[in-house]
């Protein structure tokens, strides 16, 4: 067999990276170049159309601030956190970087971020001027370490043409309407016994399942974030409902092995629950007539999954660089309307009420959900426990395993991790 001896390789990689601990703490970049400019490294994972929007803002910033030059590096999200984490641990971290709200606690709790309370205060940024939940997502144990750039809830995308063709006046708002609409849009058009147009399809199981859990007034963890909430009857109800859409109502295909989003883009799926950030990709699909609105209410509670991009600085940063980094962070926040055009919702209340934002149809429609957005649990172990939750949802919807059994296993694994903390 010619399989590579990966264990040894990985082990040495692991060790080699740790061994370099003493070697490359922080490379000796000058804080200020001889001509007085401060160069700021800015990392993010905006590798989609959003990257272009961010690049435009950075270019504008560099033009307006001759003494600060921002160098942006886009690293696809898939490897982004590895690079940031290694940079923070062993040197080479950027001066400003983006964290998702759900990953923020992990970094804040390990003391890797710089407090920004005083910067925010001096700049006159107040909690009241922001979407409060987003502002709070950047606070860890009473100290603010990150400033939210945006908020991105899920929304209901629907294909307007398919709706008109089927004589459906508008998007569904309740579970009953949703199932009924989806049934009318699920069709075997060529009569070969196979469905070739689905009324609905699950796209990203992670966000989709959180939406259902949240609407049944539960989530991955209990409210105090000390235990798993997946063994609760509500969690089972939420997942059962998702499962029923596939097997009982037959309005959605089994998620595994389907590129559901591609299906929506090509008119083979009539409705999907996706983030506001997917909008830009849809706009490129010229022959697609779609709209994005608030998600329907499936469960007893009005709620919707949301995430945020948070901007932060590493702990080890000289005052001069910190100053420059903050200037950039604040600039991004001030200009988050430009950012919103790329499929985001700003978190500055003033911008939310601006006429420019009202013109962004999809963003504006989805922003109406802000009062009831739900972030993922702010847990230090979020990253680990989330994979167990996702795995349960995957098992429940894709295999014959019972949802109850899958949830029980995830519940036990999550509790084990939380107990070890």
């Amino acid at each position, binding site marked *: *067999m*010619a*399989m*590579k*001896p*990966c*264990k*040894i390789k*990985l*082990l*040495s990689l*692991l*060790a*080699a990276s*740790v*061994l370099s601990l003493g070697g490359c703490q922080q490379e000796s970049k000058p804080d200020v170049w001889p001509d007085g400019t401060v160069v700021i490294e800015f990392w993010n994972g905006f590798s989609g159309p959003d990257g272009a929007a961010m690049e435009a803002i950075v270019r504008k910033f560099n033009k307006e601030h001759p003494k600060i030059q921002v160098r942006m590096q886009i690293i696809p999200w898939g490897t982004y956190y*590895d690079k940031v*984490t*290694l940079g*923070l*641990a062993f040197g080479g971290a950027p001066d400003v970087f983006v964290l998702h709200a759900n990953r923020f606690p*992990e*970094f804040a709790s*390990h*003391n*890797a971020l710089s407090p920004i309370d005083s910067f925010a205060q001096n700049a006159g940024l107040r909690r009241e001027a922001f979407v409060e939940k987003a502002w709070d997502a950047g606070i860890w144990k009473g100290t603010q370490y990150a400033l939210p750039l945006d908020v991105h809830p899920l929304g209901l995308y629907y294909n307007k043409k398919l709706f008109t063709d089927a004589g459906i006046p508008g998007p569904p708002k309740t579970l009953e309407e949703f199932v009924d609409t989806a049934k009318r849009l699920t069709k075997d058009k060529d009569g070969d016994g196979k469905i070739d147009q689905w009324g609905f399809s699950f796209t990203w199981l992670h966000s989709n399942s959180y939406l259902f859990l949240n609407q049944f007034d539960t989530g991955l963890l209990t409210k105090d974030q000390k235990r798993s909430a997946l063994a609760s009857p509500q969690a089972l109800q939420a997942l059962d409902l998702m499962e029923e859409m596939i097997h009982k109502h037959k309005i959605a295909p089994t998620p*595994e*092995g389907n590129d559901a989003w591609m299906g929506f883009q090509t008119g083979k799926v009539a409705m999907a629950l996706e983030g506001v950030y997917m909008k830009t990709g849809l706009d490129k699909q010229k022959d697609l007539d779609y709209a994005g609105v608030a998600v329907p209410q499936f469960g007893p509670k009005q709620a919707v999954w949301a995430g945020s991009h948070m901007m932060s600085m590493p702990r080890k940063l000289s005052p001069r660089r910190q100053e420059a980094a903050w200037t950039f962070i604040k600039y991004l926040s001030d200009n988050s309307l430009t950012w919103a055009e790329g499929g985001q919702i700003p978190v500055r209340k003033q911008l939310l009420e601006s006429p420019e934002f009202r013109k962004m149809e999809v963003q504006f429609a989805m922003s109406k959900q802000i009062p009831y957005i739900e972030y993922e649990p702010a847990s230090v172990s979020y*990253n*680990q426990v989330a*994979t167990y939750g996702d*795995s349960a949802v*995957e*098992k429940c919807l*894709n*295999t014959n*395993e019972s949802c109850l059994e899958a949830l029980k*296993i995830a519940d*036990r*694994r999550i509790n*084990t991790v939380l107990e*070890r903390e």
Partner: protein
Amino acid sequence: MIRKRDGLAAAVFLLPYGILFLIFVLSPVLYGFWISLHKWHILDTKIPFVGLENYRNAVQDDLFVLSLVRTALFVALTVPLGNAISLLFAVGLNQNFRGTTFYKVAFYLPVVLSVTVLVVLWRWLYSTEYGLLNYYLGRLTPALGGTKWLNDPSYAMPALALMSIWWGAGGNMLIYLAALKSVPRELHEAAELDGALPLKRFWAVTLPIIKPALLFCFVISVIASSQVFGQTLMLTNGGPADSTLTVVLYMYRQGFGQYQLGYASAVAYLLFLVVFAFTLVQFRVLMPKKG
């Protein structure tokens, strides 16, 4: 005097490799053990010594146990069948007929592919809707044409194993071929005179002589297969429903997904212990008896 000089020369020749081995293999391995005794999140500045706690946690973690079982399944699927195929190819190519060189190259070629190329290629072959495999299966029996090779928990591991066998068979084939060439012709002739049929001759003459090669290939294959990583990471990423979650993938997720360096190192050492124990057993069973 000459002896001493020889020893010195040998040491000098070994030195360059010895130094590299020490720096890049031995010390990381030992350092890994030290890491495994600590609770170490990659961002932590305080790293508490926890003794064997990581090992205890791993053994109690059902996902780790599950990954061990999955790895064992992968080894069981690939090693015997893979070696049998390699040996079969080698026996075939050991016959005198035209074009053996062509077949040698053809069978060996997959070995030089990188895992990325391998996975891209086979992902297409295995595709449920557009795959070549399902196309031909569908022509044989329509019911098989829709097999979800990579999306059904019961098929994913066999699919992974099949791909890996195809990838690696050529490597062992060369070793077997070399071993077969070393079997003295006279022994075969003598057996033939005694009336032994080809299968009997293979069993009674060839096999005992190539036993060291068998041992070598089996041990190396088991070690390599228990470390399967690239294929699972890229083809199935452990799924569906953890059906292809192997130990090294699990370790990778702990180390580079959760950044739990201590725990991941403990997992690596546990895998090492299991493979080491299994190798000892193999030596016991397959080692030619002395005298």
